[in-house]
């Protein structure tokens, strides 16, 4: 079997804050193989963004890696030198951010920025780089690439900018494309188009796509496998079909039930998950979801849940899952 392209094992990240140590990631493990589209889903504060920052070796100054590795092609990213980490970004791991307006500099044209992103390209002159940028814009479905190259970010619509951001991310043929909430800022129609584009890109790039979102619809449309995060842990991972049709963790079930798009019949009383995620300053000893879980008993509150393997492609972090 081939080596996973990206392998995160038991990653622990803490933030130092005025309130004490925030345990943002509490032993996250995740693997991504070449050619896969993997989704990471969870609500605000579950650690999605910290995970993305760790992947890019872009953790905030007050963050501390308390353990674990992030290996790309078998080599740890976190323990490389700053220069090596810098060379990695864009070339091996590229990002598409949620807000494409702030992802581009407002004072440079799209063309100038797409050329700059190729600064690592050996023996290519400016004209070749500009031509490549144009080709990439055409590939992401921009009708008039020559004109787009001359435009400034504010002159493009949100959908166009997000396409340009994807072109920028793909310029250096990265092995892993990380899309952080790629459609949250877009309309339904633009969202559908960007999802369509991402789906067609997966066939063209020989790497993997990691989609980070809180939108279950986006995951459902796009991903092969999904990791569900809660309070800094992966609580369930499964193939996308199993996740939506046979979810095992109570949190996953609750999350799916909350999505208004999931309800067949009109209901004016929408399901919610009562309670709040726990504070990650001194996180609970037992299951982090126990206070909000309908199945929880004393054992759930007292002891950390085991990771139960349901099938070769599905694991659940829960006391209550009987094999």
């Amino acid at each position, binding site marked *: 079997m081939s080596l996973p392209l990206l392998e995160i094992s038991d990653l622990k990240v803490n933030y130092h804050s005025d309130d004490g140590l925030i345990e943002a990631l509490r032993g996250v493990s995740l693997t991504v193989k070449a050619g896969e589209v993997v989704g990471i889903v969870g*609500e*605000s504060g579950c650690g999605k963004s910290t995970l993305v920052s760790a992947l890019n070796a872009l953790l905030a100054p007050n963050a501390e890696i308390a353990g674990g590795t992030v290996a790309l092609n078998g080599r740890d990213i976190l323990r490389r030198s700053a220069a090596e980490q810098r060379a990695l970004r864009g070339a091996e791991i590229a990002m598409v951010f949620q807000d494409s307006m702030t992802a581009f500099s407002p004072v440079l044209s799209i063309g100038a920025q797409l050329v700059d992103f190729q600064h690592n390209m050996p023996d290519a002159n400016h004209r070749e780089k500009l031509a490549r940028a144009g080709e990439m814009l055409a590939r992401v479905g921009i009708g008039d690439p020559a004109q787009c190259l001359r435009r400034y970010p504010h002159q493009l*619509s*949100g*959908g*166009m900018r997000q396409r340009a951001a994807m072109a920028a991310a793909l310029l250096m043929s990265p092995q892993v494309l990380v899309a952080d909430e790629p*459609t*949250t800022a877009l*309309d*339904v*129609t*633009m*969202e*559908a*188009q960007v*999802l*369509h584009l991402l789906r067609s890109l997966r066939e063209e790039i020989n790497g993997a796509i990691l989609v980070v979102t*809180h*939108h*279950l*619809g*986006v*995951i*459902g*449309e796009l*991903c092969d496998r999904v990791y569900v995060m809660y309070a800094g842990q992966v609580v369930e991972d499964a193939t*996308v*079909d199993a996740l*939506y*049709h046979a979810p095992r963790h109570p949190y996953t079930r*609750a*999350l*799916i039930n*909350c*999505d*208004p*798009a*999931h*309800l067949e019949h*009109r*209901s*004016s*009383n*929408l*399901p*919610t*998950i009562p309670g709040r995620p726990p504070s990650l300053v001194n996180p609970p000893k037992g299951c982090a979801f126990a206070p909000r879980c309908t199945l929880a008993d004393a054992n759930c509150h007292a002891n950390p849940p085991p990771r139960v393997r349901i099938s070769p492609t599905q694991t659940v972090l829960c006391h209550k899952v009987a094999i």
Partner: protein
Amino acid sequence: MSALFEIHDLTVDVPLESGFMGMFKMAQPKLNILAGISLHIGAGETLGIVGESGSGKTTLALAMLGLAATSGGDMHFDGAPLGNRASFIALRQKTAMMFQDPVASLSPRMSVGALLYEPFIIHGKRVANRRAKVTALLEQVGLPPEITSRFPHELSGGQARRVCVARALALNPKLVVADEPTAGLDVSVQGEVLNLMGALKAELGLSVLIISHNLAMLRHVTDRVAVLYLGRLVEVGATDAVFTNPRHPYTASLIAAEPQPDPRKRRHDLALKGEIPSLFLRPKGCEFHTRCPHAQPMCQTTAPELRTLGEGQVRCHFAETLKLNKRSEHYGMEN
């Protein structure tokens, strides 16, 4: 009919910067945003307004509250005509607006308590026991009294929304206008905010206008929906009817474009291609013909009128004969 808010043939234009031509005192060029908008909101009703960015949803809400200048048409609130400044000031005591970004709509320098009391000061209302009033408002939206001394940046997204709801309810309004009330919220919190609004609506007999492009949410919380495209109403009808049997191709496309939280319902074709045209280059004929999968030659030349069809209204030449997707047609099984 007991409509609380009535809009008749509303038009909104914005003057363009005249630039070079302005030097010659030419007629000031105008950009038309909304035209021919006729809508009503019944007492106790929830109306949803849906459309893509740039369709004029927010402008319509602003115009209704007198925050954007109108250039045609008339509006009535509770039977009284709206037009001059005084009428809108009176209106704003009985209506409340919840803006899109809750944190940005709360002054960062004011505590929650001060923010909740502000509507009373603005409208010169005396309150006997200020602290009790603030606590009561917080309780109404399910927030603890301790939150009174907090500042907006110390609130979570859901709490900030609740403070906005409490502020909107401070003066016992009859109508609440909510612009994207759930944008940026997690799904579980989104449900809480909507349920809260629904419960308060029933309890206080409010009318609500919700502006959103989140169709899944609108389907559950609205009684009627109005679909806007490039500043024109293209379809108005009861929510159930519009969602199960859309009559306008644009409505059908919007519904089909929604990502499905079920991999077995993945779609292979795009529901709606292209982008909403620029307001400066408004298409001739039917404004939707440039993106409409069912466009006929007639659509390029003749603009359809908004007409009554069954219970609802639709702006399409072929609304009777079109076989629009019943949602499932756009989906196919993967593999």
